[in-house]
């Protein structure tokens, strides 16, 4: 590992990263130059994706360049873009005006805790934009300039925005502690929209947006490729359980459309959770369908712009209408549920062609989704368990001590806290992490909002410190060896965070554990779990 590169975990040592220097630099933040180094920024979006999406200023460029090749009228674009958003979003205007810089948010950000960089304090992240707002839109800023905390927009400011607004995972933890509820996620989202106007966006976001537009999923898997994936899953499921799955795809006349983040098709350990859904639905005899067209609920559009989010999200209702389903069920995903809970109905509703979700097994009517007609699978499964519709053999998850990572968006943009805990308690040996790191105070995995790419490894590990350390704590204290998360980004990025901060803890989705414990009609004696590993660990 001596030759590891900045995008590899072996390049970093926990002993070094944990020595965080919180002393601010000598120079004021406005005068402190930007230090862009490999490992701490994300590669820019490729021309072809920006062109395909019809967005601004496609070109080859690198954040390490001196000249970022901005369009000639870049200043007007930003100024007008900011004005437009101030008129469209009360949130932005209020958040620009009312911050008192009390500092309560400062050490709530995982990136500040892990890096000590003062511009990762949520208050200062917002000031990066606020200073320009003051300069362009407030009397005091126009008259007094720097004395009033205003600064003119320069190309250096754009660079700073690019760096720090892609060092925010839109997790909203700071917003819980802010006395005015100032939401840095909102500020970051709108700042990224401004950056889009001059063509400064990241490939890790824009490529998935482009891919999802065409094929419905992140990796541009074409429909027949998705069928192959499903067949692989079916093979593995049969090997583990003896059950032969019938996987309905694009089926008209199904009662329920099931939407999950496409990460669940693509990478372990999400794939095991995907098999988990399939087994559960099989056992229930659910009349449901997958869709290849709307094969991603994950929606990286949320990390690009409100327009991108809306356009990708629109596929879900369109597909539900085309297939003639009654209602929609959503899988384990984090920001997908931010979109579904807080944006979908507003952006693409009303879903008046659907029915209020009703569990065909228990008869429970989900009044909490009366308007969107879409429920979370954890609501669905918790309801099944409450009504004793599922039988579990917990011993099949023997050898696992499981803790639970509340994903940012389900926790702070929805509040689905109890449901997953009820499910976990029913299927495995469950242990909470410390209270300042769970529920509404949960810490981000460090890779949300389009930051979970390897070239950003240093920041991911730094940002992952609070979560990783909480996992390490329960590992040392209680012997926890498995971290459950109901979010595809978590399942992808927490593996790395755990490898670094809490070695030997592995990550799982909840429905993987559910399906392992679930007693299924016609199954064979289970000797291996869905990972095809011997049940109970290798020692037994």
């Amino acid at each position, binding site marked *: 590992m001596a030759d590891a590169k900045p995008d590899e975990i072996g390049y970093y040592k926990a002993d070094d990263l944990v020595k965080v220097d919180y002393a601010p630099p000598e120079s004021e933040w406005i005068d402190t130059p930007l230090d862009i180094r490999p490992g701490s920024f994300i590669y820019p979006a490729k021309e072809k994706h920006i062109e395909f999406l019809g967005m601004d200023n496609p070109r080859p460029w690198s954040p390490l360049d001196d000249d970022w090749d901005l369009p000639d009228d870049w200043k007007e674009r930003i100024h007008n873009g900011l004005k437009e958003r101030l008129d469209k979003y009360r949130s932005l205007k209020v958040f620009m005006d009312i911050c008192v810089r009390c500092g309560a948010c400062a050490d709530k950000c995982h990136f500040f805790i892990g890096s000590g960089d003062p511009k990762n304090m949520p208050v200062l992240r917002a000031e990066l934009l606020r200073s320009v707002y003051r300069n362009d839109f407030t*009397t005091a800023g126009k008259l007094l300039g720097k004395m009033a905390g205003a600064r003119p927009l320069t190309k250096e400011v754009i660079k700073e925005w690019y760096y720090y607004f892609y060092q925010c995972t839109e997790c909203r933890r700071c*917003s819980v502690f802010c006395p005015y509820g100032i939401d840095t996620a909102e500020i970051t989202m709108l700042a990224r929209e401004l950056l889009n106007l001059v063509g400064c966006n990241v490939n890790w976001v824009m490529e998935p947006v482009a891919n999802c537009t*065409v094929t419905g999923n992140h990796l541009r898997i074409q429909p027949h490729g998705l*069928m192959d994936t499903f067949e692989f899953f079916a093979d593995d499921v049969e090997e583990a359980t003896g059950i032969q799955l019938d996987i309905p795809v694009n089926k008209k006349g199904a009662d329920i459309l099931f939407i999950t983040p496409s990460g669940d098709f693509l990478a372990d350990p999400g794939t095991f959770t995907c098999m988990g859904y399939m087994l559960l639905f099989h056992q229930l005899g659910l009349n449901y369908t997958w869709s290849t067209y709307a094969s991603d609920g994950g929606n990286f559009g949320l990390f690009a712009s409100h327009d991108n989010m809306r356009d990708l999200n629109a596929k879900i209702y369109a597909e539900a209408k085309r297939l003639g389903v009654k209602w929609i069920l959503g899988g384990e995903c984090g920001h997908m549920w931010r979109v579904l809970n807080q944006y979908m109905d*507003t952006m693409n509703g009303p879903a008046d062609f659907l029915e209020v979700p009703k569990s065909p097994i228990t008869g429970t009517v989900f009044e909490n989704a009366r308007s969107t007609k879409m429920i979370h699978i954890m609501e669905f499964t918790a309801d099944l368990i409450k009504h004793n519709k599922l039988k579990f053999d917990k011993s099949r998850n023997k050898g696992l001590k499981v803790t639970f990572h509340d994903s940012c968006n389900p926790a702070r943009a929805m509040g689905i806290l109890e449901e997953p805990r009820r499910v976990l308690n029913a299927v495995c040996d469950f242990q909470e992490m410390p209270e300042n790191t769970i529920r509404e105070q949960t810490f981000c995995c460090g890779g949300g909002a389009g930051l979970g790419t390897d070239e950003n490894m240093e920041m991911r590990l730094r940002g992952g410190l609070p979560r990783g350390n909480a996992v390490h704590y329960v590992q040392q204290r209680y012997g926890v060896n498995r971290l459950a998360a109901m979010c595809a980004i978590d399942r992808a990025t927490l593996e790395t965070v755990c490898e670094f901060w809490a070695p030997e803890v592995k990550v799982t989705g909840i429905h993987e554990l559910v399906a392992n414990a679930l007693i299924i009609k016609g199954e064979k004696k289970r000797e291996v779990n869905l990972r095809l590993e011997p049940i109970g660990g290798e020692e037994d």
Partner: protein
Amino acid sequence: MNAVFALLIVVGLAFVAMVSSQHAGSHAFFGIALPYVAVVVFIGGMIYRIVDWARSPVPFRIPTTCGQQKSLDWIKPSRFDNPTDTFGVVVRMALEVLFFRSLFRNTSVVVGEGTVKPAPREEGDESIAPAPDPMPGPVVAYSATKWLWLAGLAFHYAFLFILLRHLRFFTEPVPMFVDLIEGLDGFMEIGLPTLFLTGAVLLLAVTYLLLRRLFLPEVRYISLLQDYFPLFLILGIGISGITLRHFVGADMAAVKELTLSLARFQPVLPEESLHFMFYTHVFLVCVLFIYFPFSKLVHLGGVFFSPTRNLANNSRIVRHVNPWAKPAKLHSYKEYEAEFGEKMKAAGIPLDKD
């Protein structure tokens, strides 16, 4: 540097007032014109700000949820930290505005190294056990910190009660509640005239808020001129007010003659000149009123407009409408099937065409 500037500005303002109000000729300005201007600017400015915020719509329903959602009947929702109805939102806002609920959650974090000891285990516990010999490693520890909350709350309430107490000068007869507040405020009966607790609390709290800005490195780093200025200004107002009451022994009857005449819109200066310290106090208050609508102090109104706090988390129950919404640019299923139809057919996926 920002702090020094702010201090100099406030000292300068006070100095100008002290010197110029020595001349009786200036009293009509300090005692009558400026207070009217200040009140008009304050009210007009705040209305302007509020109308300005209200003019921008709330396109999306984005509450920050801080507790369990309302979902299944048998799971108890957190009615006030994650409200789904108007009542819940009203309580949430009340807790926020009256008790600084969010700030009460404040924690501080320490990153260090240490060893996490295995938890004691009950006999017969057959679940997984932690490794017997824990290794030292990084430890991130959180602890509750309430000082900012306490000082903030003390400061705001002291300010409110002082403001209410001052209604004595603008009403005749003085309303009962003002007498009551004053009675409570002076119940310690220290000194003559009685020291008001709120005055002392205000000075202490503002001093704390100032010191933490000056001495906590992170807070100092984010502090701007406009963060120090109101603190020094309010400190100046408090000191001049206390001086006026306890050291100058101002002629309260004469003061009231003036203030009451202002309230009745028939302003007259008292025959005998009021002390310059009175005019200084009034001047600084006027500066605060005028400064208020153009500064961060508008959080007084803004807190009510924060969409992460004042909206119910019910966007799956009731459709929230965005007034400027545009329809999605959908990559339609038809386009999708046109591109992949052949492959879908070969893979056995049903098509619309067939």
